[in-house]
């Protein structure tokens, strides 16, 4: 299978809130088929960078999709190419789960009426995330982990080649962490590319093709997971002593120092 033909590129992207530069001259390129993880301590600017890539935060520098500047795309076109999964999954109305997933079809013109293609995409997204049995339940009655899967299904139903996911596996148990991660990886391989902010370094090492390390708004490293996630680097960026090893071919990251308070 050849890699999907799409490129997301950021060139010296900066985001400033007032005098504070939250993201400072971030440059990188993600190609079709890749899953790239962004890691870094709290406040490093990961979410802001992701929002800028989605066109949700005003930024300077250039962001291009297949060479076309993000700003030149109409809002609808942008929404059909880039799906964004926010960090917190809020559902303000008790809509049925299937109706929430159907919201992912809005950029494709779906209203209260759904086309056959809409129904197909919704059914596949629900099946992939294992929420088909909740289709008719009000989303507000689901547990946190179930809601997270509904949010992922909504993003998959968009059928946008680019998925930007902010901590897609937070609040999920181990089984669904791996299921969602596998789903994002499959999406990248078959349909486009994925950029995900991840807190779990071992998960990042396990699923990402590349890891971008951010600190203080800057990209301090960008490369293969095994090179990026060394004990030295983690100590330098996170200020935590870790042991890094391999178990059954998968990289594990174990924190050693237990700080006694700030």
């Amino acid at each position, binding site marked *: 299978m050849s890699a999907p033909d799409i490129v997301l590129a950021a060139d010296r992207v900066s985001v400033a809130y007032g005098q504070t530069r939250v993201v400072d001259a971030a440059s990188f390129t993600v190609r079709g088929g890749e899953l790239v993880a962004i890691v870094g301590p709290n406040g490093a600017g990961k979410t802001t960078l992701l929002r800028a890539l989605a066109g949700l935060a005003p930024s300077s520098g250039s962001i291009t999709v297949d060479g076309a500047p993000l700003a030149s795309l109409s809002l609808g076109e942008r929404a059909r190419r880039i799906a964004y999964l926010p960090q917190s999954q809020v559902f*303000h*109305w008790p809509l049925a789960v299937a109706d929430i997933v159907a*919201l992912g079809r809005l950029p494709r013109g779906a209203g209260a009426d759904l086309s056959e293609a809409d129904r197909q995409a919704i059914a596949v997204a629900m099946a992939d995330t294992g929420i088909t049995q909740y289709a008719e339940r009000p989303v507000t009655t689901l547990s946190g982990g179930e809601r997270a899967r509904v949010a992922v299904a909504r993003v998959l139903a968009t059928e946008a080649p680019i998925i930007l996911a902010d901590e897609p596996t937070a609040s999920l148990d181990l089984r669904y962490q791996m299921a969602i991660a596998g789903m994002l990886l499959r999406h990248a391989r078959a349909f486009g590319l994925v950029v995900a902010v991840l807190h779990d370094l071992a998960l990042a090492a396990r699923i990402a093709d590349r890891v971008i390390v951010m600190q203080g708004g800057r990209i301090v490293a960008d490369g293969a997971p095994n090179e990026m996630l060394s004990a030295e680097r983690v100590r330098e960026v996170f200020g935590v002593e870790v042991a890094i090893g391999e178990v059954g071919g998968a990289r594990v990251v174990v924190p050693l120092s237990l700080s006694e308070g700030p």
Partner: protein
Amino acid sequence: MGGRGRDELLIGVLAVLVVVLFAVSLAVGPVFLPPATVVGGLFGGGSEAARIIVQEIRLPRALLAVMIGGSLGLAGASLQGLLRNPLAAPDLFGAPAAAAFGAVTVISLGLADALSFALPVAAIAGALISVALLILVAGPRSSLLVLILAGLAVSSLAGAGTALALNLAPNPFAALEIAFWLLGSLEDRSMRHVLIALPFMVVGVGLLVWDRRAFRALTLGEEAAASLGFDLRWVRLRVVTGVAAAVGAGVAVAGSIGFIGLVAPHLVRPLVGHDPGRVVLPAALSGAALLLAADIAVRLIPAQAEIKVGVLTALIGAPFFIWMILTRRRELTGAPS
């Protein structure tokens, strides 16, 4: 999923209800007219008296009930969609109070009588400023608590302005006229009132039916809605302007009629799967039906003076609001909004 067919049925049933109540409204009044005489009067046949009663007294009243009730239901559903909260309503956030302030100021300054075109313009300007002030004070991503406090502040400010206008009224008769006008009534309105309100309501309604898809997307919060291709600055501007125009025009010709905007969407919401976009049109029809029913009721309730319809909707609406808060108390106090 695929609720469109059911929505059409719901809209059809509500439309029939509105038509039936409209007919009842034409038939009810201090002078009893048999149905055949009402129909005759409406289409210009029958006696001169019947024609005047039906065409010039009852028809404007019924038309205004449909227009104002519909606008209030539509405005309530739209504000609730925009703010993602079922307790949002135009009358909770000061738009009608500000519209009343604008209108009363024009009357008490002697700039216009109650039939002039300046009155609705002043009322609509008041409503527009109040909603803009609300969003400015509360901020775009405000919690429900901040929003309610800001609405209270805006309402109080408009109320203080209205009190000042009453205070400075040129004579006691003007003050009494203003006070009664503020209670909200459809009594003794003419086709001229209908024509004054109509253009503003058409604009307001046109703006409010625009963003139903955006309201659905906003179920996921503002970030996700923006990522689905909606420009929320424009959505906000359209809703604020639409609510001000539609509600302001209603206040301009009928005074303040409260709680329809809160109750009407609530009654139909479960019937559309709680979808904030699909609720908009049924809420407008349910608002029209509610105000028609209330305006029929005030004519049937035996009382020395006719009870103003704004008083009746407040008497029923306020306890309803209390009940809504009671049933939602857990999520209102528990979860961060």
